[in-house]
């Protein structure tokens, strides 16, 4: 920019000086006109660079989000759902279970699927486990609107 301003100041000074020294006849007018054209070309010279595509970048790189942070949020959401499921089943059926939740990455972390392991049926007898599993599955499916799988039912009881 400094170079541009100095070049303009230089050409203007030159034109003004020559304008004083020029004779007043037709030759003087022609030279005066030529000097004005030269001055104007120096004035608009930087804009010719835009015309011929020098040095402008209109569309930058795409802005990327931090995928590791979103993955961490997804993990926190899954941990929260697992704690909720364990607390819910413990509260409803007095059963100690473990849960494994899988949440969506690209939503408000809605739940895709939940796997529940019920190693100990507690006070419930072996014959009641089918009813309990069905009730539990329905409860969690209605709660989280996802696929629920219950496995390892009564493994501890059968091992006694």
């Amino acid at each position, binding site marked *: 920019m400094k170079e541009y301003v100095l070049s303009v100041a230089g050409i203007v000074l030159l034109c003004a000086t020559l304008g004083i020294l020029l004779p007043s006849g037709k030759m003087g007018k022609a030279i005066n006109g030529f000097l004005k054209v030269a001055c104007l070309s120096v004035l608009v010279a930087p804009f010719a660079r835009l015309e011929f595509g020098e040095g402008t970048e209109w569309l*930058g790189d795409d802005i990327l989000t931090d995928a590791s942070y979103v993955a961490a949020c997804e993990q926190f959401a899954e941990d929260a759902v697992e704690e909720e499921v364990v607390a819910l089943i413990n509260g409803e059926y007095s059963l100690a279970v473990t849960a494994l939740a899988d949440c969506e990455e690209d939503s408000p972390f809605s739940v895709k699927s939940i796997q529940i392991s019920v190693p100990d049926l507690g006070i419930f007898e072996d014959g009641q486990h089918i009813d309990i599993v069905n009730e539990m599955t329905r409860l969690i499916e209605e709660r989280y609107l996802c696929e629920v799988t219950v496995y390892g039912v009564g493994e501890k009881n059968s091992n006694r």
Partner: protein
Amino acid sequence: MEQIDLLLNELDLSELQNYLDEFAQFKGVSVKEKLKEVLSGDFSINYKSLFDGILSLFWEEVSVLLPAFAMILAITLLCSVINTAKSDILHSSMSDIIYYISYLCVGAIVLSCLISVLNAGFDTVQQMKMQMQLLYPVLLTLMAGSGGVVSASIFRPAVAFLSSGIVELFTSVVFPVAILIIVLSFVGSLSDSFRLKKLSELFQSVCKWLIGLSLGLFSFYLTVQGITSAQYDGISLRAAKYAVSSSVPIVGGFLSGGIELVLAGSAIIKNAVGSFSLFLLVGTIVKPLMLFVSLQLFLRFSAAATESIGGRVSAFLSRLSSSLSYFIAGILCVAFLYFITVLMLVCSSGVIL
């Protein structure tokens, strides 16, 4: 608060930290610690000392320009005294030469002050561009983490265009055209044979149109996109919440808190990052704006002081002070678009939760 600390530790702010470490006044300042202060409410601003700081900055810039003002006044006065002797002692062409010399001396003084100020204007816009490129990915990440995935994907091209296209428009077109207007003012006042007033007016209207259109169209687009995308995200999240709350009697609302805690944590951190970015923006533009305002004041004062003794010099100084408005408008326009984008990114979570 524990959940928020966990989320904050997962957030990658290393590039922002590296950017702040380049500035002496921010060396040793941890971005995550500052965000924690904002989150906990410990961060406060002493408005009195801020106002005093701005005022002292302004007076400092004005005092730097005082010697230049004195020189301009002296040169114009001398030229005027010599010109009054034109009819009795000097030939008219000698008077023209004296006028040209005085005009060029005044022009040299003013332009030397102007070049450093204009460079500050360019630097400010580049600093804002760099901040946008550092902060927008963080805000979009936090927006996605707070459930605004659709909003984040819709805002992404808009913020990319702002941080590159709009800034490039100002640095490659608006500011160079404003410099051309300044140069045309300088040349046009030099001699009656150089009639450049209409050309100057053409470029002035080009500048005004570009600033107005970029501001109006981009703000409109951003506002509409922000509202519609946040509504979509809000509907999908509310649908999930309704399903949760309505299916389990009594304890439904209580049990939906786990995921909401994660979403709310990201939203709260997003608000803190948004506030931090606005403080950074204000800190970036205050000094250059004070520079431009003090220079504009200086030129207007000089034009007023020289009006009675140096006609064309006064007109040149007055036109020059008006031309500086395009730079001020350019900086404020980019800052406003930056601000409104941050505002949209931060406030969209209010619709979701």
